[in-house]
């Protein structure tokens, strides 16, 4: 099903040399990065990164370990201040903003090394994600004013609604830290969605998931895109997921883009095979041999 969804979209050229899905052509891009870069000391972790994302596009960011993928997420969310280039979110420059402001403007993310509030329940984690969506002042909370009760009720309902995307309402009272790995990754996605983003960044969402869970995740990512009408940019090493749902893929190596294109173009690109896919295949092959 997911396979079919993707192949329906046709990528069309966008003025700055990028491609967006045909359906997003008239709309303002949600994200535009140009010449984005960062140096750590002398190390150019990311260099001359350019991307344009349509408002309902699912994009992929792949590349070998240490290529700079997570660093790009950290740049987009202003965890790191870029040393070069610009980031525009719906045309708005993110350069002077902080992580918190960027989230309020509409970028939410998950983390490669999961960062949940492990001592709190699943529902509390989502409620924290709803922080700016359903406000309630400190004094209403302390004095238990009616505003407090109505906000708590709204938060509860909204949290349950969001958890139901991944069928997790039954886990609402479980400590987040005691969830299995796959469920923790899903909860992180729900928490990010709770902030009502326009662009969702997923850092290796399928890491640690079994093939069945990954399959479900693929369907859910597409469902989230369709239901919330947002753009999703994901980093992933699982090529089945990337090739299955991404409409536009960007391959990084040593901080530089080495290829861009549709899954078909990427899969058949000799440069990509040389730098990344070939290695992945031989690694997978080696694993199989070990198992055998």
């Amino acid at each position, binding site marked *: 099903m997911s396979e079919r969804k993707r192949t329906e979209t046709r990528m069309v050229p966008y003025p700055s040399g990028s491609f967006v899905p045909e359906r997003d052509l008239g709309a303002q891009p949600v994200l535009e990065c140009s010449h984005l870069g960062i140096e750590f000391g002398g190390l150019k972790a990311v260099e001359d990164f350019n991307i344009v994302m349509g408002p309902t596009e699912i994009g992929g960011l792949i590349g070998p370990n240490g290529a700079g993928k997570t660093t790009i997420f950290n740049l987009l969310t202003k965890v790191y201040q870029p040393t070069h280039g610009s980031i525009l979110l719906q045309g708005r420059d993110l350069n002077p903003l902080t*992580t*918190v402001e960027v989230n309020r403007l509409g970028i939410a993310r998950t983390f490669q090394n999961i*960062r949940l*509030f492990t001592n709190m329940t699943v529902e509390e984690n989502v409620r924290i994600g709803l*922080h700016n969506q359903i406000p309630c002042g*400190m004094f209403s909370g302390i004095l238990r004013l009616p505003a407090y009760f109505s906000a*708590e009720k709204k*938060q509860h309902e909204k949290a349950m609604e969001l958890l139901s995307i991944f069928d997790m309402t039954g886990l609402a009272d479980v400590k987040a830290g005691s969830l299995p790995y796959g469920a923790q990754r899903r909860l992180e996605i729900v928490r*990010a969605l709770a902030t009502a983003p326009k662009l969702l960044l997923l850092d290796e969402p399928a890491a640690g998931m079994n093939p069945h869970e990954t399959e479900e995740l693929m369907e859910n990512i597409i469902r989230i895109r369709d239901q919330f009408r947002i753009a999703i940019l994901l980093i992933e090493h699982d090529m089945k997921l990337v090739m299955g749902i991404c409409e536009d893929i960007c391959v990084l190596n040593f901080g530089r883009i080495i290829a861009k294109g549709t899954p078909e173009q990427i899969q058949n690109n000799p440069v990509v095979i040389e730098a990344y896919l070939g290695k992945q295949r031989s690694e997978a092959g080696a694993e199989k041999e070990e198992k055998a």
Partner: protein
Amino acid sequence: MKRNSKFVSNLITYGIVIAAWLICSFWMGNGMSSSLKAMLVPICCYVVLAISLNLTVGISGELSLGHAGFMAIGAFTGAILSTWIIAAFPEMNKDLVLTLAVVGGGVTTMIAGALIGIPVLRLRGDYLAIVTLAFGEIIRNILNMFYFSLDGSRLFGSFGNPNIPGKMIYNGAMGIKGVKMLAHFNAGVLLILFALAVVLNLINSRSGRAIMATRDNRIAAESVGINITKYKMMAFVTSAALAGMAGALYANNFYSIQSSKFNVDTSIQILVFVVMGGIGNMRGTVIATTLLYLLPELLRDFSQYRMLIYAIMLILVMVLGNNPLLRNLWMNINPFRKPLKRRAKADE
């Protein structure tokens, strides 16, 4: 279900305080020793101080070593206020005077907390602890520079200049004299209930969750749009205000009081109550503070060993409390206790 159990847990906490109040009220009329009677109000004050410090240390996750400084600001503001109000409005109901003094102490300390929080909360971990320690001492030294006097019903105050008209009530390092001792046990219990309500309600609200999110994982909290500085500040200022109120009640329990009372030892003592009661555990804090404050009284013959006993208990709590096996055991005994990790894990 979960929220229900929290609600019940909070009710039990209030219940324990009210039960203790009933028992003590009865006992006071039926042969409570005068030395114990004299300890009731200070116990209440220390319970409030420990609850408020637990908000900073346990809920917000910032180790503060200067809590006695806030207590001092509240104490002197409260004592000066009550002395002046009684001189200016001799007809006023004494409990109203006390309330005004306590509220005044709280508000002043809240402002001081905000001023100190701005620089201090930029720091983290051990640095923050050291700087709060320093601020505690700075506050005490600044308070030593103030002078207040009463001329009839008029209040005079000065900074660094003891030559002010009328009768001196607050004389720099010599502290305050002639306080009317309005504090009583019922007021102390009310203040405990108030502090508990503020802290417990705060914890179970959107703001409290944001404070705890900031403590548990700063980066994740920022990634969902939580303004970390704001919520650290909120916890710190609330904590300061409650400490100031406790200080004001404390000062109104004694005829005279000097700033030397509010030194590092006192800060550490409050911290000991918090650690013993459990980081982030308000009910434990109430119980531990009461027991530890009474301990020297119970062991009156060995009272010179008080600090030794503290030290040993502190070491035991540190050693035993961090043993995972034992921790699980405690948790099983106490189903309501929330295990709280002090800091967000590693890589921050």
